[in-house]
Structure formats: structure tokens, C-alpha cells
């Protein structure tokens, strides 16, 4: 089936098999390998992308379901060489170790901060329940998101 999607501002049209998962479309067809596959069973969140602005697990969506959609992946967050505030937060606050969970963590945090610009620590922890990290113990991930929230609120 033919689908047209806009990924990070670029429009693509491809003929895909209905069973092709969106994560495989992004990684194998578009070569956007920043979106990771951690579990493939909908649990880890490493594959999280923004579908029409909302964080979703791209291993649990068929590419055909995304026909006509706007997609943002980790590759599309930085603008003109400037890191997105959430990316900057992970950099500044040491929010990653191996980095495997990081793209998904960041995409979830971007959606979350759109809806809750001034979250408590507890709210941040609840928001990233669908993203598993095997390295950091989450503490610095929470700090990274707090950093981003503050930066985005101050409007810079």
C-alpha cells in the first residue's frame, strides 16, 4: 500500500507492506536509525517518536497507520545546529550512560513538557514510566527533564 508521511519536515512516499512496523520503516527504509528497538514488545519505549506531536511507541504502530501523518524522530529535534532544550538537558545533566534509551526518553519528555511545562519530580517520573533505562537509575534523567522544563519556561 502506498503511504505518504512527513518525517522531520521531509515528505516521503513509499509502497509498503501493511505489516511493516513504523519503527522498521523509519530505520530500514528511511535510514533514520536514531530511533531504537529495545524490546519489540511495547514495553521499553526506546522506539518512541512523535506522531502528529504525540509520543508513541513506533514498534506498536504499522507504517500504514501513519499515512498522512507528521512524524518527528530524534534526528529532527535539533534546529539549525542548536540542540532542543531536552537534548541539552541530557547533555548538561549527564542524563545518559550507554545512550540506548535516550532517543525514546527525549521524545517522551518533549511530548510531556508540551502538556505540563512546570512538572513536579513525581510527575516527571510518572511520565517516563513507559521508558526503561538499564544504566542510569533515572535520577539524572529526571534532572535533565527538570533542566529542560526550566529552560523552556524561561523561553530561551
Amino acid at each position, binding site marked *: *500500500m502506498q503511504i505518504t508521511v512527513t518525517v522531520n519536515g521531509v515528505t516521503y512516499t513509499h509502497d509498503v*507492506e*501493511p*505489516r511493516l*512496523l513504523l519503527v522498521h520503516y523509519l530505520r530500514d527504509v528511511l535510514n533514520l536509525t536514531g530511533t531504537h528497538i529495545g524490546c*519489540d*514488545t*511495547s514495553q521499553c*519505549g526506546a522506539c*518512541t517518536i512523535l*506522531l502528529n506531536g*504525540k*509520543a*508513541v*511507541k513506533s*514498534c*506498536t*504502530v*504499522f507504517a*500504514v*497507520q501513519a*499515512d498522512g501523518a507528521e512524524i518527528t524522530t530524534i534526528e529532527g529535534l535539533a534546529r539549525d545546529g542548536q540542540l532542543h532544550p531536552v537534548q541539552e538537558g541530557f547533555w548538561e545533566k549527564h542524563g545518559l550512560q550507554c545512550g540506548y534509551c535516550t532517543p525514546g526518553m527525549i521524545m*517522551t519528555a518533549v*511530548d*510531556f513538557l508540551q502538556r505540563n511545562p512546570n512538572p513536579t519530580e513525581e510527575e516527571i517520573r510518572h*511520565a*517516563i*514510566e*513507559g*521508558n526503561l533505562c538499564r544504566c542510569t537509575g533515572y535520577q539524572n534523567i529526571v534532572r535533565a527533564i527538570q533542566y529542560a522544563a526550566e529552560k523552556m519556561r524561561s523561553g530561551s
Partner: protein
Amino acid sequence: MYPSAFTYYRAGSVQEALKLLMENPDAKLLAGGHSLIPAMKLRLASPPALIDISRVPELAGIRDRGDRIVIGATTRYDDIQRSELVRQVLPILPEAIEVIGDLQVRNMGTIGGALAHADPAADLPAVVLALGAELTAFGPDGERTIPADQFFVDLFTTALQPNEILTEISFPKPPAHTGMSYQKFANPASGYAVVGAAAVVTLGDDGKVAAVRVGVTGAGPYAVRRQNVEQALTGQEPTAAAIEAASQLASEGMTFNSDIFASDEYRAHLTRVFVKRALTAAIERARG
């Protein structure tokens, strides 16, 4: 993990979805996909065709119909949570949805998909039972209404026929002095309900319990109402002792699931405890 191959259809209307369903009797409807796709990836399900109903305009949305609130079957959890109307009138819905899965799951999952799937550990079945909702099904013979009480019939089994589409869920607006609460004991690994209890309580002018409905999910093969608890509390002064006595009945006459995480005995215990918590919170809110 790839599911086995299937034909993909995208329905533009409920009529078209029904027509496709009649032409493809083994096809499955696809709403949010967050129960169906994981099952297909594990090849627990291998439908030859999927009929995507997520873009049917008349199936999504939240409507105020006077004395009822009607939520379309493909309305996503996230849109229900964002609805000011639902927050005001049916606050138990966002309270329960907030503890479903995670942020990403709530962005995709739909209320109708959750109810039609009838996972024994799903949250919303208990809530629609406690709210006394009615579910509308559309099939070859037209439309019919199914009370929530008659909707869940067994493990992953509802009163829907294979060629019926759940179109909307209609909730009566609760009278004044009504409080409601959903209390969940989540499996720490999966996040699904080991036991979830929903209570909706209306107090009379005398402060006594005028009406109460209790729904329990997770505990047994399918979500059930707990009429014995409701009867014990109706007409009573809602004291801590009365709530405790009624909650003790919550596990009576039920079949319990048993798995590696929670034995049937433990689930029976959790049922009593979480029914008590839900009733206590609902009554507190009813007092306002």
C-alpha cells in the same frame, strides 16, 4: 518481530467498516492497536485482514447529550483525559486512565478498543460497570444497546457479535452529591491491574447512601459488579464501620484468577481492600 501478512483496509464510515467486516468475516477491527498489534507480533493473533476504524469521524469524540455524556468508541485515552467536560462530570475516567499503561499507550489506546478487547486485567471495564454505562453496537441488523452489566461475559469475551462494531459508550450524568473513585493495585512489571475497584456513590440529603455501584476488574476472568456490597451499603450511614462491613463481602461468590504474581487467595484479599479504598474515597468526594 513481524506479524504474519494481512490485507489492510481503512474504513471511512461505520457503514463501510461493517460492509468490510461482512465481506471479510475473519478480519479484525483495528482501533489504537495497542492490544491487537502486540498480540499479532507474538503471533497470538494472525488475522488475514485488518479494518482500520481509527479515522472514522463519527466514531471519535465526546458529546454532551443533556442528561448523558457520550464517548465515541475510537476516542483515545489522551483525548478523554484532556476533556474538561469529562473531568467535571465523570472524574473517575481520567483518574483511571492516568494509571493505564504509560504516556505513549494513552496517546494511542481507545476506550472502545479496551472495552471490546475485555482483557481481564484492563482498567476501564470496572469503571463502566460502576458508572452504569450503556454500550452501543452496530451490526447487520442495525443498532442495539448493551448495558455494561451484560457486556463482559468471559475472559476476553464480550456480548459483541463478531460482526458488530462498538460505536459509542453512553454515561448517565451522576446526580448531585455523587463521588467516584478508581483504586488500582498494579502489577509492578506490566502495569496492568492485579485488582482494580471502581466505586460511584450518591449520598441523600440525610447523608445516607442513596445509591452505590461497585465494579471490580483484574480479580477474576472478567470484570464484575459487586451487588452484594452495594446492597449492604444502600440506605446506610456511610461510617468507616459500614464501609468495612460492606467491603468484606466484595470477594464473596467470585471466581479469582491465580498466577505467578498473585494467588487467588491474595486476589480475594486485594479485592476487599481495594473496594474499601474506592468506597472510602468516593464517599469522601460525595461529601464534597
